């Protein structure tokens, strides 16, 4: 069986694909929710906590995409 299919690699692909492929969209969705939320601004600023969290989400997603591009450039 092992010579036909590398089960340990397949498992890793499944788990990591689920984490990245479904997890990052979830983060992005949280970001959109945060932007849409009407919250009171953080004292001393004009932005709400939700907005800050939203941009944190977007930043993580962007960083992950950056890693993806770096991986392509590095030739994987």
């Amino acid at each position, binding site marked *: 069986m092992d010579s036909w299919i590398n089960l340990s690699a397949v498992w890793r*692909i499944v788990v990591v694909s689920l984490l990245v492929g479904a997890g*990052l969209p*979830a983060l992005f*969705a949280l970001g959109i*929710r945060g932007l*849409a939320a009407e919250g009171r601004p953080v004292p001393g600023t004009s932005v709400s906590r939700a907005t800050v969290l939203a941009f944190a989400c977007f930043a993580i997603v962007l960083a992950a995409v950056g890693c*993806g591009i770096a991986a*392509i450039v590095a030739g994987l």
Partner: protein
Amino acid sequence: MSTVVLVLVVVTALAFDFTNGFHDTGNAMAASIATGALRPKVAVALSGLLNLAGAFLSLSVAATIANGLVETHLVTLTVVFAGLAGGILWNLATWVLGIPSSSSHALIGGVVGAAIAANGFHAVQWHGVVAKVIIPAVMSPALAILVAGLGTWGVYRLTRGVDDGQRRRGFRYGQIGTSSLLSLAHGSNDAQKTMGVITLALIANGTLHPGAQAPTWVIASCAVAISLGTYAGGWRIIRTMGHGLVEVDSPQGFAAEASSAATILLSTHFGYSLSTTHVVTGSILGTGVGRRGALVRWRVARRMVIAWLVTLPTAALVGVGAYALASSLGDDIGVLVDFVLLTVALVGLYVRSRRAPVTAMNVNDEWDEPATKNGEPRHPVPLAA
């Protein structure tokens, strides 16, 4: 072998690369065009540019396409040519029918068929074909359905209560990013295949020594060919992927593209080179499964799966025929005759496609087959986006 044959092989390989480009524009851009994240013309231009960039990113290209699939020392120029003929013909025929199918499978099928015709069944490394081509082809759409299904469910769950227009707008921005990433990945993956084929031909001809890397002119010409093909836009296929399978809204499109990009990049990283088409189609189906009330056309999906099953054998048959004809006439004249026949067939298919052209103008028109509603719809889903 004469130089004429080598030139014909290179020209045919670049033509294949071009068909590879327009066959796969939809992989990266269909969902973005369907949801209005990008205007059709802008989408294909962006995708073309990123394919160009992606192709140049693949710096270390070797003649790997046939590695582990056929006995490479048995490969001659005529085998390469016949293989390309199989790939190109299949690509154009499926494009006329608007069916997304794997360009890599078409090419592999053609080469395998030609190798069998040249040297018999022992010329093929069957274990490699099953382990590297067939098993991944079965598993990758399943994985994509899973990832995109879960992603879609999560995205809708987490944005519940967010204003519809705001949500749609937000995910459209996201889609620009995800479809760009897919285009880049496509350029770096798929342009390499043709680079590998041309390098293989150059080695078979004795121009390059075995194990040589692709020369710069090969990399540059392949990059340009795939990029132009992408820009030409396989509108028929874009239409099927964006509207035929599932009527996609921007959160779904975003989830589908993210799932595709993640699956393709990660499996390449772990040593499996998957067909972009299989993954993307799986993701789009998944995004239909993961949303209550989504419109899914299982009939279109079935048609596609049938096309996938026959891709390898059909391209192989063309490869066998092209090789048999070429070698019976003598290699030089034979390849020339093949080339003329292939050109006639391609022109015929193109003329056939003009009877009902699909262009940037009508790519988003309503699909005229009934769709199955997935689960009980909470909100009525408009048919035409």
